[in-house]
């Protein structure tokens, strides 16, 4: 085992991690650990754009953007965080342009902007052109531009290093009111080098989690195979809570049966959804902004059309995205990639035929709780000094119960930058914390168990069963019954997981072993999502309970906080389910009182 020492360790090399690295790398000795090569990160799959109230093409301002974000998140958004994001959005876009990002341009040579779901003029009056974009590969351009600038600044990367544990210590401390508590501190991380199978311990003054999402808990997803929630999982196992995990976004337009993302930019550019009767059904669900309603509403509307028998295709299980009224030249200029996906994977020509689509699991609104300075919280308000999180792994919370399109590319840039600056500044004034004795012991034990266990259960089979039950029971419509079914299923999966066999016994590039480790994270996170969903007896944003179809601000306008608590048994009270303790955290409300959410 090797031990390395850095001021700042960044875990993950997607948009948030690399945006942080550009700041941190110029201020402190920094290394980025990533389970992939940086340019493979899933930021590169984002398509439609990044919203900022530049007002380049029509009147706009950051306050409208803040309002849209709060309303889009169904009032579960922390409004101070949304305000920070909407304000800093403008500089975030300009920063990227100066780094070289090739945005599409207006005839005047300014950054062009287009419409996107839920982004409106003057508090919902009409769609507004706010999304800055580069064709339909904005995420690709952001990822490439950030990587280019990491190369420019000589950022040090450890590629294909899987971070499997956070090294934390706990100290006795006393709150202002005299009550004692355990203060967590971060000492470093433990990492597995894919190429050699060796463990490496990285001691650090600051650690930034930027590991992205966990979409692989679902079967139908726009997410990469590698999005297994590792960062959320390792934090949760160290007693760090996970916030608002019941809120998962289903993007309306995944390619039917495949889940491959077709950007909302298609609808921003004028495409519409139709059911089997050829009807533009969004006119019924969102009369004002129709197909450009926020994603939770569009996804539910689509699922409802299918449920009521107006789905298309031989099994009537999808709806259609219709671009046929748009000029082919316009489609080629603005939506070249997604139309190619339709051709490549479904053999459909979008110029002349509508494209089969259905909601696809897309984005975790919840994650590791942070404050607006990106500092990770160990409870509702105690920070863990030196530990930061940004991007999809984090819950700051700017997305509340439903993220608006483009706000994730914005989130990673705004809060990635904040994390990079904050982590480096903290490291300058901090000392290294002594590593615990045998820092790699837990990770070694985990790997040894996975490698030597021989019960014959296949990792892929358990994962498939997990994904199937999550799709069937935890998608856009949920009930207590469906959620309970998932919890019961997960209990059996956990038992099977204890009896897995990994076939690859080698040291080099043992992805078989790592898929088994990743399944452990998926099971853990699926359970957190499910327990939190069971407890939230209301419908809000991406979480829709058919048995509780209304939003209930009195009881539930608060964040959920899930803690791993081994002492809790499955027979415990409703706040203690399946080894998870649930708490709540108040929502930060500044200027917007909750209103009925209509579009």
């Amino acid at each position, binding site marked *: 085992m090797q031990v390395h020492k850095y001021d700042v360790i960044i875990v993950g090399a997607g948009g948030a991690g690399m945006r942080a690295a550009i700041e941190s790398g110029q201020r402190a000795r920094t290394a980025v650990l990533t389970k992939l090569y940086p*340019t493979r990160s899933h930021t590169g799959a984002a398509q439609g754009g990044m919203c900022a109230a530049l007002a380049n093409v029509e009147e706009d301002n950051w306050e409208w953007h803040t309002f849209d974000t709060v309303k889009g998140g169904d009032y579960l958004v922390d409004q101070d965080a949304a305000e920070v994001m909407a304000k800093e959005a403008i500089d975030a876009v300009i920063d990227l342009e*100066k780094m070289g990002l090739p945005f599409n341009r207006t*005839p005047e040579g300014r950054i062009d902007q287009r419409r996107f779901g839920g982004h409106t003029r003057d508090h919902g009056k009409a769609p507004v052109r706010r999304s800055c974009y580069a064709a339909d590969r904005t995420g*690709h351009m952001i990822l490439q531009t950030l990587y280019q*600038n990491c190369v420019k600044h000589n950022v040090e990367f450890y590629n294909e290093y899987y971070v499997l544990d956070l090294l934390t210590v706990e100290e006795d401390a006393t709150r202002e009111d005299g009550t004692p508590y355990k203060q967590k501190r971060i000492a470093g991380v433990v990492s597995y080098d894919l190429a050699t199978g060796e463990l490496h311990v990285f001691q650090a003054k600051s650690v930034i989690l930027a590991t992205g999402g966990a979409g692989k808990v679902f079967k139908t997803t726009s997410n990469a195979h590698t999005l297994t929630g590792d960062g959320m999982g390792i934090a949760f196992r160290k007693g760090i809570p996970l916030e608002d995990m019941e809120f998962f976004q289903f993007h309306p337009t995944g390619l039917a049966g495949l889940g491959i993302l077709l950007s909302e930019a298609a609808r921003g550019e004028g495409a519409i959804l139709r059911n089997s009767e050829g009807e533009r059904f969004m006119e019924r669900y969102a009369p004002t902004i129709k197909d450009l309603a926020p994603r939770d509403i569009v996804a539910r509307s689509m699922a409802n059309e299918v449920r009521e028998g107006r789905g298309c295709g031989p099994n009537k299980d999808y709806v259609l995205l219709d671009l046929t009224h748009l000029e082919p030249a316009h489609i080629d200029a603005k939506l070249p990639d997604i139309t190619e996906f339709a051709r490549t994977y479904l053999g459909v020509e979008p110029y002349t035929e509508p494209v089969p689509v259905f909601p696809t699991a897309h984005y975790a609104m919840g994650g590791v709780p942070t404050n607006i300075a990106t500092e990770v919280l160990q409870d509702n308000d105690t920070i863990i000094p030196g530990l930061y999180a940004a991007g999809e792994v984090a819950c700051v919370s700017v997305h509340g119960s439903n993220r608006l399109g483009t706000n994730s590319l914005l989130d990673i840039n705004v809060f990635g930058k904040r994390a990079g600056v904050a982590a480096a500044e903290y490291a300058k004034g901090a000392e290294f914390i002594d590593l615990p004795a045998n820092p790699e012991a837990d990770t070694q034990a985990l790997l040894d168990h996975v490698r030597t266990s021989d019960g014959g259960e296949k990792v892929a089979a358990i994962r498939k069963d997990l994904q199937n039950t999550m799709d069937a029971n935890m998608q856009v419509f949920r009930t207590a019954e469906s959620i309970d079914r998932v919890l019961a299923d997960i209990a059996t999966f956990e038992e099977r997981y204890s009896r897995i066999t990994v*076939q690859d016994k080698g040291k080099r590039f043992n992805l078989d072993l790592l898929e088994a480790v990743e399944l452990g994270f998926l099971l853990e996170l699926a359970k957190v999502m499910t327990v939190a969903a069971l407890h939230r007896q209301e419908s809000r944003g991406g979480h829709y309970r058919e048995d509780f179809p209304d939003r209930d601000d009195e009881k539930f306008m608060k964040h959920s906080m899930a803690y791993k608590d081994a002492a809790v048994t499955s027979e415990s009270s409703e706040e203690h389910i399946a080894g998870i303790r649930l708490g709540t955290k108040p929502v930060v409300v500044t200027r917007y009182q909750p209103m009925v959410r209509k579009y």
Partner: protein
Amino acid sequence: MSPVETAETAPEPLSKIELPAHLGGGGEIPTFDITLRVRRYDPEFSEESKWEDFTMTMYGTDRVLDALHKVKWEQDGSLSFRRSCAHGVCGSDAMRINGRNRLACKTLLKDLDTTKPITVEALKGLPVEKDLIVDMEPFFQSYREIMPFLINRSHEPSKERLQSAEERARFDDTTKCILCAACTSSCPVFWTDGQYFGPAAIVNAHRFIFDSRDDAGDMRLEILNDKEGVWRCRTTFNCTEACPRGIQVTQAIAEVKQAILARQV
């Protein structure tokens, strides 16, 4: 650019239309049996590489990546390959499929001849680590050497730099690169001379050389005028054929060559 209809100028689409009978590509999905012939290599156990056949039943919408996953998940967990996004944008799973460099996630099985074994092997010209995994470091080293980042020496405006739509279009094609190495590792010159920068590095140099905001084109042209630079290109077009993003790679290399010549005149 010619004016096109935009969301703002287009007429509102009809509330209801008559749909075509087949509803956009639906229908029964056919199944078929395939043999996947994979070149296996794991130096931890043997210095020899060997071909191994796997047979399976697959569906009409399945890609080569799905077949690889089926092997790994159901037959032999030790089969090793990189993959991530699974829809052709991350560049992880470039490999040689039936002798051509392609992304496994973008190659549909039904588009291959499934009556014969489908051969899958690691990219050529980069050191093989295990099965389909190659050492990407030489590839990224060349990329880093062409200074793949915007260099602008002028005064920074407080807002964005201006760039016309035409200037932006000048280098649009080469911004599509996902660094998958399919082009570079399809190049016969690269196979015999690993020092050659290779198409991908030149594509990424092109992306900046022709960006109106960049001031370091001369430096990049100087680098590529090196004996291992653009002049090694023999215009065999393998790179253009291999590019999963449809970049006109050979043309980009030709444009860089012309820029070097024009500068010397």
